[in-house]
């Protein structure tokens, strides 16, 4: 075992893993984390805690992780290169490990121009691939990026993101290969609505044997309203929402759209589960955490495995 991560244990046991997502509040109200955590507890193996998602100032991921951990969740701290240079990144890596957080998702981060401080200076000293390698070298070789050594290493289960729907499609598998070579232990993908395209990407992943080297968690998310679906289709960079997905929601009475969104999410889970090389799902019920219990229950993913 590379870490004390519950997620690593679940994946190692061969169980189909489920990770969730929890967005910290744009205030100092820790109660928000506790309320959201209640819906996730017992329903997921680990929870991503976002780090200034869409470049909006929110409670820091690591602090929110500590609250989530007190609630009994297994947090995955997200960390972006947008706001920290390599000095700050490595300091936070040491800090979160010392606080008992076992998982880290290394991201470049959404560009600051999309957030509520578009006038901010972006850092981008490292990119996500370089950051993955820095964390791996800290854990496995006890070395900082500069080469200096440390005595106690951060035992983190290292994650990275992949977006099979961004361009150029042909390059996306090669980019995943570079993330794996850098040291990623698990991958969480962009939300999948175009299952055919995802399956095609997975074919390329298997051709290179990457599914044998890294655990791939397929990103899924229920759609709450037709407006939200249109927004993702047109406004969110790197999202692929095919028209039939929206048509299906349009086909039910307005008061049933949420219910249909949950059903559709379960259907997508069942489809991606059948694709060879998929080791689990990453369920992003963003600002809709209360939908998580029903989704995992209906998809037959309960109870979650107990691991020591």
């Amino acid at each position, binding site marked *: 075992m590379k870490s004390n991560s519950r997620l690593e244990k679940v994946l190692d046991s061969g169980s189909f893993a489920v990770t969730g997502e929890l967005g910290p509040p744009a205030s100092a109200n820790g109660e928000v984390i506790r309320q959201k955590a209640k819906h996730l507890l017992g329903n997921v193996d680990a929870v991503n805690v976002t780090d200034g998602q869409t470049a909006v100032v929110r409670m820091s991921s690591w602090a929110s992780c500590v609250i989530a951990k007190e609630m009994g969740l297994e947090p995955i701290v997200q960390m972006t290169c*947008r706001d920290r240079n*390599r000095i700050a990144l490595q300091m936070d890596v040491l800090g979160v490990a010392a606080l008992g957080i076992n998982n880290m998702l290394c991201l*470049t*981060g959404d*560009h600051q*121009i*999309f957030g509520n401080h578009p006038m901010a200076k*972006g850092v*981008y*000293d*490292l*990119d*996500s*691939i*370089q950051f993955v*390698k*820095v964390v791996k070298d800290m854990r496995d070789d006890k070395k900082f*990026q500069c080469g200096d050594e440390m005595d106690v290493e951060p035992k983190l289960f290292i994650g990275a*993101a*992949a*977006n099979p729907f*961004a*361009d*150029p499609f042909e*390059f996306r598998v*090669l*980019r995943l*290969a*570079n993330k794996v*070579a*850098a040291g990623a232990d698990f991958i969480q993908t*962009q939300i999948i609505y175009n299952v055919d395209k995802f399956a095609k990407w997975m074919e390329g992943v298997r051709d290179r044997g990457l599914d044998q080297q890294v655990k791939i968690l397929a990103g899924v998310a229920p759609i709450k309203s037709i407006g939200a679906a249109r927004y993702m289709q047109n406004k969110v*960079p*790197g999202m692929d929402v095919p028209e039939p997905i929206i048509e299906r929601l349009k086909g039910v009475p307005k008061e049933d759209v949420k219910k249909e969104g949950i059903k559709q999410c379960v259907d997508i889970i069942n489809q991606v589960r059948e694709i060879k090389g998929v080791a689990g799902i990453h369920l992003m019920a963003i600002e809709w955490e209360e939908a998580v219990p029903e989704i995992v229950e209906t998809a037959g993913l309960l109870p979650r495995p107990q691991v020591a």
Partner: protein
Amino acid sequence: MLTTKQKPLEEILEYTAGEKKIFVVGCRGCAEGCHTGGEKEVLEMKEQLEQAGKTVTGTSLIDFMCNDSLVRVTLNAHEGKIVDSDSLLALCCGVGVQATSSVVDRMVHPGCNTVSMGGRHAEWRQGERCMECGDCMLEYTGGICPIARCSKMLLNGPCGGSADGKCEVSPDVPCAWQEIIDRLTKLGRLDKLSQITAPKDWSVSLMAGAATKV
């Protein structure tokens, strides 16, 4: 004036490993002033490459390599020799390397590091081309600079926001990494991206290193 320093010969030979025929381009503008890419340095480079077993198919000096139209016109006159070459070596600033890359379908190796813009920003006016990072990496990115032209300065791009050739920040901004991949694909050199580019040493750059004395 863009201040350049010539890259060590070992680095240039590493770039040109496996290649036999090289066309050398120099710049009569800033690079001549810096003694990094004028007539004398171009001839010296020719000699060094020949000593290393390469064939230099030809040389050319361009008044201002940052002027892409001038580069196009000047290199047109050498078309036969360039077509016969494996690659070009450009002794000039990063803007000149990119201007050359934009007009020839051959790998263009950077022969210099651009260390300072010394007050002005070249003659190729559509957008930023060189950020004076001090450790030119155009070799690995098909002669298109991701530091100047990727919104996140990714050295291992593209990010998940690249769509239809555009950057996620605006439909008016081309995705530099899409351009890099297209160009390396066209040149059959996508292998340049199969290795992870290590974190950059920013201490040699004007952007983030120590302030320099005047």
